[in-house]
């Protein structure tokens, strides 16, 4: 019997409200310690989705801004949320400099944008969400568990 290593779910999101609903449902299925990679081109909505996830965790979504410059931001609510953005990193060794390998072990949700820049990081992900742009507020999402 052929076993699938990963199960994928495809979704089409037509509005911000739908994205919010997705985030709420998605969060309710989490245990709270997952490492989640968000993949997709510039403008695909990775930070927007992170805001929706934050909102579902009772973190003020307006406080969640792009961590491109600061590389990692931490938020505390009932659950901690760590939001990484590896856009500015050029080399793998810089991951140690931002304590990536330590923080992925901390309790709480770890959301990482641009992890796909470094193929060796794949093994640390629990869930990978790939976003692509359809129309102006349309997005396609592919959600998969990492084997």
């Amino acid at each position, binding site marked *: 019997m052929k076993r699938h290593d990963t199960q994928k779910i495809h979704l089409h999101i037509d509005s911000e409200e739908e994205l919010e609903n997705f985030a709420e449902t998605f969060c309710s299925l989490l245990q709270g310690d997952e490492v989640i990679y968000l993949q997709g*081109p*510039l*403008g695909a909505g990775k*930070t*927007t989705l992170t*805001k929706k996830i934050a909102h579902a965790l009772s973190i003020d*979504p*307006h*406080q969640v*801004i*792009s961590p*491109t*410059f*600061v*590389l*990692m*931001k*931490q*938020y505390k609510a009932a659950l901690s949320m760590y939001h990484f953005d590896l856009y*500015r*990193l*050029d080399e793998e060794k*810089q991951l*140690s*400099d*931002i*304590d990536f390998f330590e923080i992925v072990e901390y309790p709480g949700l770890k959301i990482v944008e641009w992890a796909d820049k470094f193929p060796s990081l794949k093994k640390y992900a629990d869930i990978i969400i790939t976003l692509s*742009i359809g129309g102006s507020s349309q997005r396609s999402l592919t959600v998969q568990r990492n084997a």
Partner: protein
Amino acid sequence: MYIVGIETSCDDTAASVINEKKELMASILSSQTTFHAKYGGIVPEIASRKHLELISHVCQEALQSSHIGWNDVDLICVTKGPGLVGSLLVGVEYAKAASLALGKPIKGIHHIEGHLLSPSLTHPITYPYMGLIVSGGHTEFVHVPKPGSYQVVGSTVDDACGESLDKFGKSIGISYPAGPIVEQFATQGEEKKYPFPLPSVRNRPFDMSFSGLKTAAMHVLQKLSPDEIENEKGSLCASYQRALFYHITATAKKILASYPSTMILLSGGVSANQTLFSMLQQSIDIPVLKPGKGLSTDNAAMIAWAGYCRYIAEGSDSLDFEVQSSLALESYAAE
């Protein structure tokens, strides 16, 4: 009285010395060509590791340039947040240990407060004033009715404006740091050629959103060939900049109507952009001030100055203050 400032919140390792008369005796940054010509390294460097390698050297340079030693130092000030935790820790632990060893007071300072107060190092200021911080990592309006009292009245809900300029620059082939180069190209182009949209934030008239601008720019660029992008660089940059700065200026006008202020104090890396400065000056009736040379981007002189002001008002901090990657300005001020 000699005050040392240490700032390691993001990429740059910085140390400075000022005195109580606001005289800047030294401001050293690891990204300065003179510094890394002496100590090596590549600019810019993303690395808490680099902070550890350089902290001793930047502090030593700052003291030497000021012709003083550690025993002459009266107060140590250090950024405790917001920023990257691993980076902040290097500065904070170094500063705490120095404070313990020398028996001197210490102040843990908010990075944004440093920016907010930096123009006052070189210019007289009057209250109430509106601080506008525009950098790679921050874009916010902070109302300051009196010393030490801060209210964040408007900010970006997604990208910071410096980041927006950088990402746009990168997508048309300009390398980091793209901001100043985008500004240069913009002078050669037509700013109305590409009408990029200016989204507002639902129910939040004083907040700004720049990620829609980025997406719109990507759409436009997808329809152009590489040659066209090359030829149109000037107009693309001019148009993008105009949309970005118009958004900020329009928000400034709205905010000032509700928060009367005697002046706007501009700071952060993007405050060096002449187009933004002129646009603000032209749209607003009150004076627009920006910090002296070398004090717009992240630096330790602003931390030393903010630390000195706080020390006079509150005395020393105890050595158990924490480093925080996200530190709200209002809760910091209320401590």
